[in-house]
């Protein structure tokens, strides 16, 4: 039974491209196979001749770049610096824009929504009567309590002068802006 190594195994072995386990296998096979040993010897001679031939081909050639070519390689240097400068500047500008936007966003949003909340308030405005306030029909609303003569007609005209309820976008009630209820006398 012929038990020879494959030709690839011998080539890979000669070129030292086998791992330790494969190498051990090939060497163990070679012990009992004269033909494999001769094959390895012939392949090693071919390798030596090839390396010698490759080296001889280049003998006498000046394998170096000339000074002009070298200077052209490193002549790219200034543009590399400017490229870095522009890159850093662009990054800084983008960061500054993000910070400015984050600072200005609440103000912009407030201005945008104030118009909306005013329109909504006008659309939803109802004459708040004392009875409705006392009946707590809209417990979420901050009532504008007008204590007056109790005359609903005068109450209505009085209510036209009273500013409507204003709510900020966050839902919080700005007490500083809220008109204090008129409690009569010098309570305010």
């Amino acid at each position, binding site marked *: 039974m012929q038990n020879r190594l494959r030709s690839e195994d011998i*080539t890979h072995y000669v*070129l030292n491209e086998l791992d330790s386990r494969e190498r051990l296998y090939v060497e163990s096979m070679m012990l009992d196979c004269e033909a494999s040993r001769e094959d390895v010897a012939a392949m090693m001679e*071919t390798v030596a001749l090839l390396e010698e031939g490759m080296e001889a081909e280049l003998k006498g050639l000046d*394998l170096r770049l000339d000074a002009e070519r070298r200077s052209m390689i490193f002549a790219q*240097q200034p543009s590399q610096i400017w490229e870095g400068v522009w890159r850093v500047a662009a990054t800084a500008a983008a960061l500054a824009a993000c910070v400015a936007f984050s600072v200005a966003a609440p103000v912009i949003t407030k201005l945008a929504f104030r118009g909306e909340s005013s329109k909504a308030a006008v659309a939803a405005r109802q004459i708040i009567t004392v009875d409705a306030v006392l009946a707590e029909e809209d417990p979420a609303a901050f009532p504008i309590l007008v204590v007056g003569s109790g005359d609903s007609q005068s109450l209505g005209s009085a209510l036209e002068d009273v500013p409507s309820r204003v709510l900020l976008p966050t839902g919080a009630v700005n007490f500083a802006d809220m008109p204090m209820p008129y409690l009569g006398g010098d309570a305010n």
Partner: protein
Amino acid sequence: MFGTKAQKKTEWVQSAMVRYEKPLLQYSYSIVRDLERARDVVQETFMRLFKQEQEAIEGHLSQWLFTVCRNCSLKVLRSQERYVHVESSEFESRSSNEPSPAFEMERKERVARLMELVQELTPNQREVVRLRFQNFHSYQEISDITGLTVGNVGFILNAAMRSLREKMERDDREEKIIYLTKTA
């Protein structure tokens, strides 16, 4: 800050040139067969290296350089549509003119004949043989440079070596026949 970075880049490219200038010139010359064009190719290779970020290439600098060099060399070759064949007479003219023992002479003749046979290999085989025996790249490095799989590299190299050996042995047999015929 920018000066330091530029200086580091320059030093990096310079160290790469010290290490790879000659091997790259060898490799490019083996493809384009013209020293000046090989120098142009290697110049282009290092100019491209200068534009790269060091961190992106660190760890596989050799493969990157040889791959770029290969692509540039093939582009030069295609643009000129020229295949330069090394004539045996040209190769022999480079051999030593010093008188040598018969054994050395015979060996030089065998080497010359083998290099002629290398030119008769297929382009793939020729390239893999040169990367291995001229630039001493491993199977993995040749795979990275050429885009072939490691298995393919081994297969092609084995086929090339076997082909070269068979032709050399055939030439040896033919020489013996000729010799015996003459002496008969």
